[in-house]
């Protein structure tokens, strides 16, 4: 199914993005699943790939977020990529070439850990803190990896799939209150 529609929001030119020459070898790219191109580096190719993109004209790192594939470990992935539970999705934007590229790196199952992009893009500091706060994905090399959205002594990472939504059953009788 071609998920591309002319009026759709992706904008920019959609032909497959050629990796810059200094990108580490063996990085799989495919655009079967998405409108823009997605690259699937492994954990140790991740920092080098982002660095190659930065030198290739991607000046702005617009988004870093985590995804928890607990129920979809068998999701469709290009061949040669081993799907793990946690994934970090980074979105780079090139102002000169008016292009976006999405980098999906598999972050591992139990203690997900990925290199931090702070040295390349200081703007990703808060985004990585939020991903750590919500998913528990560690970012090695991050200046101060603490919680950003949840209160300090909160246990657990709320956006994980095995974390309950904390729904309170709707009470119709007199609600408990300090009255």
């Amino acid at each position, binding site marked *: 199914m071609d998920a591309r529609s002319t009026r759709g929001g992706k904008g920019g030119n959609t032909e497959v993005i050629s990796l810059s020459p200094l990108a580490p070898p063996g990085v799989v790219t495919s655009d079967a699943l998405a409108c823009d191109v997605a690259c699937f580096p492994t954990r140790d190719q991740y920092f080098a790939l982002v660095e190659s993109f930065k030198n290739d004209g991607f000046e702005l790192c617009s988004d870093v977020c985590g995804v928890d594939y607990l129920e979809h470990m068998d999701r469709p992935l290009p061949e040669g990529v081993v799907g793990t539970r946690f994934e970090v999705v980074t979105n780079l934007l090139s102002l000169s070439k008016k292009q976006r590229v999405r980098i999906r790196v598999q972050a591992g199952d139990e203690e997900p850990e990925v290199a931090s992009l702070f040295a390349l893009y200081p703007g990703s500091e808060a985004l990585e803190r939020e991903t750590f706060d919500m998913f528990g994905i560690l970012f090695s090399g991050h200046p101060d990896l603490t919680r950003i*959205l*949840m*209160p300090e002594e*909160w*246990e*657990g990472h*709320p956006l994980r799939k095995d*974390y*309950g*939504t*904390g*729904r*309170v059953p*709707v009470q119709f009788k007199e*609600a*408990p*209150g*300090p*009255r």
Partner: protein
Amino acid sequence: MGLEDLQHNFLTGQLEDLVRWARRASVWPASFGLACCAIEMMSAGAADFDLARFGMEVFRNSPRQADLMIVAGRVSQKMAPVLRQVYDQMMEPKWVISMGVCASSGGMFNNYAIVQGVDQIVPVDVYAPGCPPSPETLMHAILTLHEQIRTGEILQRRQSGEPTHLDAHQNLWTPEVPVAVRVGTPK
């Protein structure tokens, strides 16, 4: 010996009505804007829906000079102790309007992050429905509060059915130790 030690009799009857009327006419809100309801509260205070007509000319920023706290918006778990702290620091007599469904009952966000109803933290007097309540709804809530003030007991506002004569050492206002405000981590 303060105003609340006065016995109810014909001599002091008029004085109480006078004090209640005066208090109703100039209730100053503490601007406790949290989310979308805060924008509606601002437009309620601005030119078109002027709140100044009800004596609420100015939104006091420090709780020391405010009588009414309008909780405008959704109260998150991180914000709950701060809300309680600001409420405690307000001078008596003080009232609370819970503006919007998120403040009144958690609204559409029934999840780990939102306190399901601000009356688990502070005693609330008037609940304003709506998401966000339009300025007219907020004004209706304010007028209901004015009625409560005008007809309510003069100072023993918190306890209903309490003997009118007040024991000076009895702490009737708010519980001494702040209520355990953080609902904790639901699993």
